[in-house]
């Protein structure tokens, strides 16, 4: 079934990204915007655009009914959700399909399974694939929890079953800690995610976050496009990602890829998704969660494989086939991505809204900047602080790194404070240069900064 027109129900850099691929394919790109976004770059680039509501996300980008209404009005065949907002909302995906629209992404069933962290864990565990040691039944009361945690042994991570994306996680050091945190954690889970069910996983010391990009046909077929290392995080939010991951032996790398494909097949996953793993100090890897969406960091995978993942999503959505053979996916060179946020690293990463008076994009061989910025852009307060993603590619990791350092310096966004200078510091950290860095890299850097100031 041919798709000739798509509604992009998102904003910012990802809306720009999707619109670009649509236009290259000769597919009509329709944008939506809130009042705050009426002069936005994605609106400028789209073939058609529709105002969907006031600035607050709940009244615009999260207004499912309005979005479906606009899809009908604009006469599109398909909807691309981007990431965030309604991208992993099974109800919205079902509404689209009920309205006769193709949802360019996973099925509502995929989303339901991925969104229930405990169910996802059980599914992978039942297939004898590695999951982080822990319980696979949720517990609803403290007595149950104490018995389970005692048996597993501390330290543990207390997680919300309906959580995800780094939210709803607490570290438990001992029984007293569990007793203290349990009630609050359950209450928060109920209020933030609508479900108080909690579970625990063994606390893995100084892990690495390695994830695999997959594409599925929704019928049990899947391919992988290699892994990404996303261990540079602050408060569970990724700051820097790279592909391939440094510091992995070929056998471990292959095993992670194969496991990811098996998981995608078991889930009967459709379209683009990511399987996230944690690696411990002995190169043991464990399934953590499945992200049922195209991710922020997808460009690093595109740079090393040459595969346009948005176009791949469209192909699967229109043909029902993956359209790419596993052994036809090349890996060449190395790519790094730095997320540029409107935050001041010297003020505890406080958000910095305001006008971008001067903007100069970096360039050169191996430089890519995915952004919605333009000179004169007014950064709104209503959405997240991501300004753009600076991606570099080189034939070796060293080349990609050198290009990134140069590009970060060349990037000009004034007078707004951004995280660019801080990211430059991360790139120069010994453990990042060597490739051996772990999930606690940023935490350690910030702690030692505080000690220096103190």
């Amino acid at each position, binding site marked *: 079934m041919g798709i000739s027109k798509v509604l992009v129900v998102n904003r910012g850099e990802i809306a720009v990204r999707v619109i670009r691929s649509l236009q290259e394919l000769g597919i009509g790109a329709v944008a939506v915007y809130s009042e705050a976004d009426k002069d936005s770059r994605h609106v400028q680039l789209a073939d058609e655009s529709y105002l969907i509501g006031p600035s607050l996300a709940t009244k615009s980008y999260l207004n499912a009914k309005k979005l479906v209404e606009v899809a009908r009005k604009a006469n599109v065949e398909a909807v691309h959700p981007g990431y965030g907002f309604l991208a992993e909302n099974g109800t919205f995906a079902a509404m689209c399909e009920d309205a006769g629209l193709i949802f360019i992404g996973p099925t509502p069933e995929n989303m339901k399974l991925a969104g229930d962290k405990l169910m996802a864990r059980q599914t992978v565990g039942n297939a004898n694939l590695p999951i982080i040691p822990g319980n696979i039944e949720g517990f609803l009361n403290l007595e149950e929890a104490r018995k389970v945690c005692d048996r597993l042994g501390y330290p543990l991570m207390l997680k919300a079953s309906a959580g995800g994306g780094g939210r709803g996680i607490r570290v438990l050091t001992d029984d007293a800690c569990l007793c203290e945190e349990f009630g609050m954690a359950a209450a928060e889970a109920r*209020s933030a995610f609508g479900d108080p069910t909690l579970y625990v996983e063994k606390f893995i010391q100084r892990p690495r976050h390695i994830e695999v990009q997959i594409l599925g046909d929704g019928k049990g077929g899947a391919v992988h496009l290699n892994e990404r290392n996303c261990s540079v995080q602050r408060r569970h939010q990724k700051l820097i990602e790279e592909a391939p991951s440094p510091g992995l032996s070929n056998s471990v790398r292959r095993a992670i890829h194969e496991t990811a494909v098996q998981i995608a097949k078991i889930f009967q996953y459709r379209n683009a998704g990511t399987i996230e793993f944690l690696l411990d100090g002995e190169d043991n890897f464990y399934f953590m969660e499945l992200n049922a969406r195209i991710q922020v960091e997808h460009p690093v995978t595109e740079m090393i494989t040459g595969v346009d993942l948005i176009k791949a999503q469209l192909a699967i959505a229109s043909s029902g086939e993956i359209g790419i053979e596993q052994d036809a996916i090349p890996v060449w060179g190395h790519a790094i991505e730095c997320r540029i946020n*409107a935050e001041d690293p010297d003020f505890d990463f*406080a958000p910095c*809204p*305001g006008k971008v008076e001067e903007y100069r994009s970096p360039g050169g061989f191996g430089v890519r900047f995915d952004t919605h910025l333009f000179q004169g852009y007014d950064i709104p*307060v*209503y*959405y*997240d*602080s991501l300004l753009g993603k600076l991606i570099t590619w080189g034939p070796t990791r060293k080349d990609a790194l050198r290009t990134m350092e140069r590009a970060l310096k060349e990037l000009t966004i004034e007078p707004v404070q951004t995280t660019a200078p801080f990211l430059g510091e991360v790139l120069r950290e010994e453990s990042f240069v060597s490739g051996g860095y772990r999930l606690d890299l940023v935490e350690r850097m910030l702690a030692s900064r505080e000690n220096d100031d103190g």
Partner: protein
Amino acid sequence: MSGIFYRKPAPDQEPFVEVGTEVKKGQPLCLLETMKVFTKVKSTAEGIVEEILLKDEETVAKGQVIMRLKPKG
């Protein structure tokens, strides 16, 4: 700092203060949200809330006056 003004700590809870509420120095008066980051705005003085100049979920500009307090007694 600019942002979105919220009178309540959460949608299903009561507002932090109303007109006539007695407040101490440092007491939270409202929330300000900027790019998904929530900050509690605390009173800089002791007094009674005289006027709340914004509606729930209204946008605040840098330097804009949010509330007026009058001294006790």
